[in-house]
């Protein structure tokens, strides 16, 4: 039977982390690749997520440090900020970052960039602005969008999402963040640094509920004591309404109804995979939680792959990048590979920075795994004394029998860098002893990692 003629060898839907790498790798192998993007090239992380938020958080951190520098002999009484200039800096960072996702970059690789929304009209064909494009393989990396929590009146008030919050012309006087996960806390910390009165409503008994208990407790303590944020755990927001120019948020806490009046409400309760792209016409099975894939990231239609947030998994850019690389490999090679989700680092950009990898203590208990744990306060290392920073710890969880590291959490300055030593250890089955026997420089935050591993 003659092989069907397609317009492209690979069509990628979405130019974010889940799509861009696969498009580049497959195009470099001389294949005909098209990339469809409904929004800004580079996707959510580069344009509306990690990058602009990171740029703003970096400014907030510098501002806070400068304000608190008088104890070191630095005169900081007159320090202030100019919000439009901070936003201009954020825009500059986004423009710099998206150079990797720019149209010219893809053109240099021979990738055809097609602006518009893709909608499947058959298993091998999508429609983009009424242009029908066919491909032998298709990668769905359409991402996810911020979802609406089930709160009465939410459709009748203007609310912020993490993307729109970055576009405010000034920090709000007061803000209620619905959702005390990583993104919610980052925005709470961002706006509180610039003077906003911030409340964080979280339904779980602690902030950052996906992390270990110590993390949630530390985050609540530091955010309330240092930044004046009001953490409201075990809190269910039940109603929001307009009140003149402001908004009223009503919530249940300890079976009692309370309410606060705020200028803005920010929704940070999680993302919903973008699956409204005619998947039925392609025979791709999905649920509201995301597209279903096998170990090789193939959907129920084997020539169609999916990667990134549309899978509804981790919502992390680096996971999407890994999946995108795997899809490229599996399209180009007969020996298919599977993603490894055992050693995924996660970072929350608050102070102290929180980073974790592998399994949490709760995960280990749920799986009934025997483990040893060591928690070392940051104050024991020389770097802590030098910088007068004491809030934080390193926690290591290791298999009781083998000593193999199963999970770790670092709460310290630069935790997002320190965590990679432990990520490497988990990825390559290293033991706590291996790390304890490795020389760590003095003075460094990483000394706390060595000490924690020595205590296992």
């Amino acid at each position, binding site marked *: 039977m003659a092989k069907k003629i397609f317009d492209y060898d690979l069509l990628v839907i979405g130019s974010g982390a889940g799509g861009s790498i696969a498009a580049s790798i497959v195009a470099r192998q001389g294949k005909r690749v098209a990339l469809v993007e409904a929004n800004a090239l580079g996707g959510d992380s580069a344009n509306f997520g990690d990058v602009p938020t990171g740029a703003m958080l970096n400014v907030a951190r510098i501002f806070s440090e400068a304000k608190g520098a008088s104890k070191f002999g630095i005169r900081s009484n007159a320090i202030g900020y100019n919000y439009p200039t901070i936003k201009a800096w954020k825009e500059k960072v986004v423009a710099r970052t998206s150079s990797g996702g720019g149209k010219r970059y893809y053109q240099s690789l021979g990738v055809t960039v097609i602006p518009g*929304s893709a909608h499947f009209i058959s298993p091998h064909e999508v429609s983009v602005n*009424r242009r029908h494009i066919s491909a032998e393989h298709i990668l769905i990396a359409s991402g996810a969008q911020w979802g609406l929590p089930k709160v009465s009146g939410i459709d009748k008030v203007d609310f912020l999402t993490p993307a729109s919050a970055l576009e405010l012309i000034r920090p709000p006087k007061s803000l209620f963040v619905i959702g005390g996960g990583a993104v919610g806390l980052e925005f709470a910390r961002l706006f509180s640094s610039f003077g906003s009165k911030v409340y964080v409503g979280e339904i779980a008994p602690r902030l950052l509920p996906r992390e270990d208990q110590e993390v949630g407790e530390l985050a609540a303590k530091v955010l309330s004591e240092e930044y004046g944020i009001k953490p409201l755990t075990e809190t269910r927001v039940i109603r929001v309404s307009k009140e003149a120019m402001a908004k009223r948020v009503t919530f249940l806490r300890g079976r009692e109804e309370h309410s606060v009046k705020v200028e803005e409400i920010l929704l940070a309760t999680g993302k919903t995979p973008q699956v409204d792209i005619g998947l039925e016409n392609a025979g791709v099975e999905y649920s509201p939680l995301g597209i279903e894939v096998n170990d090789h990231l193939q959907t129920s239609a084997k020539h169609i792959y999916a990667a990134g947030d549309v899978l509804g998994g981790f919502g992390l850019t680096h996971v999407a990048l890994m999946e995108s690389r795997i899809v490229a490999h599996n399209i180009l090679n007969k020996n298919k590979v599977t993603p490894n989700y055992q050693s995924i680092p996660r970072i929350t950009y608050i102070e102290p920075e929180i980073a974790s990898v592998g399994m949490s203590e709760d995960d280990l208990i749920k799986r009934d795994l025997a483990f040893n744990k060591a928690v070392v306060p940051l104050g024991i290392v020389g770097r802590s004394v030098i910088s007068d920073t004491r809030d934080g710890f390193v926690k290591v969880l290791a298999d009781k029998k083998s000593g193999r590291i199963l999970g770790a959490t670092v709460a310290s300055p630069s935790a997002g860098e320190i965590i990679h030593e432990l990520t490497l250890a988990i990825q390559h089955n290293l033991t706590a002893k291996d790390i304890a026997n490795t020389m760590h420089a003095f003075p460094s935050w990483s000394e706390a990692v060595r000490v924690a591993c020595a205590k296992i």
Partner: protein
Amino acid sequence: MNSYVVKSGGLHESERFDPLKLHGSLMAACLAVRSLEGEAHMVAQKITEKVIDWLDSKTEVTSNDVRRIAANNLQTYQPEAAYIYETYKDIL
């Protein structure tokens, strides 16, 4: 609204979405389960508006998409009519 509808399968010829056509088929499904004419009209109107909302960000969809979205919404208002609408798609 400038959405086009392409027939599933075949030559992929498309035509502009026709709300009246959709309204008519929804009305027929509702009347087939003995809804009163006024009620059938109201339900068909509501569902057509929901489909129009759904089409707002889309330039081209398939006739199956329109039928699926309409049926899903009809399920809320008239489950029996939704069954008829889905089952007898060639007649309606």
